[in-house]
């Protein structure tokens, strides 16, 4: 019961937040002197009716505040307008969002599966050669720019021919059997995942190591040791439980930085995700698409944080909404 109230409270808190974000981003985008329908007008395949409808929907002749109201109304109704090529924005987003979610979920799962054990291992072997080596490796992982690493992997892919050099599916994807379809996507995912994995692993491993080291130095762990508990029990039953809590909060941040990091990686690997979509939209000054994908990115981020908070509540019942 308490949990449900907590979830509800946190959920309600995020609504005004999204509202504020929409105001900020709307006015940032409208600051630009770009005509929101300029590109659309130039496209000969767009009919006059579509253009009229868009003009009506955005209320371009009215003051900015009214325009915002109109935008909000149609956004809530799920009508996001059309892109410069005349496709529906909502369709385009529905195509891309699952791809980005797939990429980030795989990366988060992998980093947790590898990063947490590595962090624990390094903390238990503090200042030993293994720990030193891991520190050096994570320093490198944190310093390498994602797009540069992606470029290096592309060279590798082209030279060896082991991996596809871009996209998410092969040209003959539609003819493959379901099983081979999965394999095909996985094959395309390898390189982008390696890039994002390397970068987020470093932060996670360091954080885990630091947390566990902090907890291992605390009084209750000393007490547990003094009681004569076995080292395994002290570490895994007593220390680890407290060291892992901050990591759950970090999950939300990790998701946020992955969304940002993925944009450049998606761009280099030509992966059809949300990050690349917004980049293309920005370059074509496709205002509808930019605004909608910015909002979607934010909603995903807020939802990610919400999820992390609920998880934290599950593992640590002391947490409450202030």
């Amino acid at each position, binding site marked *: 019961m308490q949990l449900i109230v907590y979830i509800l409270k946190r959920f309600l808190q995020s609504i005004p937040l999204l509202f504020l974000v929409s105001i900020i981003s709307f006015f940032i985008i409208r600051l630009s002197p770009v005509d929101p329908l300029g590109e659309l007008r130039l496209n000969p395949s767009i009919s006059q009716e579509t253009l009229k409808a868009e003009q009506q929907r955005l209320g371009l002749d009215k003051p900015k505040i009214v325009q915002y109201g109109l935008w909000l109304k149609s956004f809530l109704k799920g009508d996001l307008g059309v892109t410069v090529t005349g496709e529906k924005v909502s369709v385009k987003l529905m195509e891309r969002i699952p791809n980005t979610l797939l990429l980030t979920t795989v990366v988060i799962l992998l980093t947790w599966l590898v990063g947490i054990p590595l962090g624990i291992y390094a903390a238990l072997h503090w200042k030993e050669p293994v720990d030193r080596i891991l520190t050096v490796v994570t320093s490198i992982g944190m310093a390498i720019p994602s797009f540069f690493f992606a470029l290096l992997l592309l060279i590798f892919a082209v030279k060896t021919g082991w991996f596809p050099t871009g996209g998410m599916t092969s040209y003959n994807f539609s003819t493959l059997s379901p099983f081979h379809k999965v394999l095909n996507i996985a094959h395309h995912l390898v390189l982008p995942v390696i890039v994002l994995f390397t970068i987020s692993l470093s932060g996670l491993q360091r954080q885990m190591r630091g947390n566990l080291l902090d907890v291992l130095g605390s009084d209750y762990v000393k007490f547990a040791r003094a009681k004569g508990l076995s080292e395994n029990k002290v570490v895994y039953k007593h220390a680890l439980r407290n060291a892992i809590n901050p990591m759950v909060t970090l999950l939300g941040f990790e998701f946020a930085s992955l969304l940002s990091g993925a944009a450049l990686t998606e761009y280099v690997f030509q992966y059809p995700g949300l990050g690349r979509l917004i980049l293309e939209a*920005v370059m074509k000054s496709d205002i509808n698409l930019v605004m909608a994908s910015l909002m979607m990115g*934010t909603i995903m981020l807020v939802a990610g944080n919400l999820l992390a908070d609920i998880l934290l509540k599950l593992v640590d019942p002391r947490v409450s909404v202030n």
Partner: protein
Amino acid sequence: MNKNSVLAQIFKDKYATTAVVVLLILYLGILFADFLAPYSKEFSDRHRAYVPPSKVFTIDENGKFSRPYTYNYKRYFNPDELKITYKLDRSKKYYLKFFAKGEPYKFLGLIPMQRHLVTVEKEGRLFLLGTDINGRDIFSRILFGGRISLTIGFLALFISFPLGMLYGGISGYFGGIVDNLMMRVSEAIMSIPSFYLLIILAAILPSNMTSIQRFSLIVVILALIGWAGFSRVVRGMVLSIKNQEFVQAAESIGASKLRIIIKHLLPQTLSYVIVAMTLSVPSYILSESGLSFLGLGIQQPDASWGNMLKEAQEYVNIIYRPWLLAPGFLIFIAVLSFNLIGDTIRDILDPKSKVR
């Protein structure tokens, strides 16, 4: 802890010392770029696009030591494969000249000079890291590009940190509804994926700006991304100290609110601020390079390490012209060095943390 002992401790750590030395070399390099670079930023030899790095010889064909010399590359067109290849043209040697006169420039922007550290005899070309599509010397452009890539982060800090401090200070000191409202706004900014916000802000810049204007606006944009999270921490610190006696004393002698915030509260947060500043330099460097890599940051003909990598986006280039990737290694080295120093400073100021 005073400043000297922090410095002394940095130099005790061998990683941090190496990092300081590396950064010193990089910054001296960009400071004296005009002198160190064989060519100017604008120099281009249109007949020598994508020339591989020049080879410098110190032993001549008879196996004897000689003054260092280089050969020019000659272009060959292979009609079967439709490929252009460059081969060394061994018919004529070009000796390197040290401290000789070359293209004129203004040393440190003030003193007109002509001498360059190393140039090559007339008609010879010395491209230590090859050339780009316009036949411009990559080595020289890396030095000039570093001026932008390595300073933009610091400039952005000088905007984002005062802004974040003041914002956090006001929010924390006033409290109540002001605090609530201000914090919701900074939360909202933090909820937008930062890179998305960055590219949108960069994209709404008008295209008809001079390079100086563009540079300054990119600085402002980078600063606008970073301040929100930082202001929340400052606000928390202000909240915890605002009820202390020295603040009440200042209030009772009638100091204005702004004065209390700036003179009494914010200086208390300074040690945190300095650490946070050192730790955030690399992220600004990475953001700028990412932005320029996409073509939304610093524009041609200006050089920055990010926009030099833009050419490496094409498969052909990265396969046959790997020297175009050189700026990427420099970004990596600079960021790594800043991170190492940041880790060490954090260790020193917070002895409980065990980053190392």
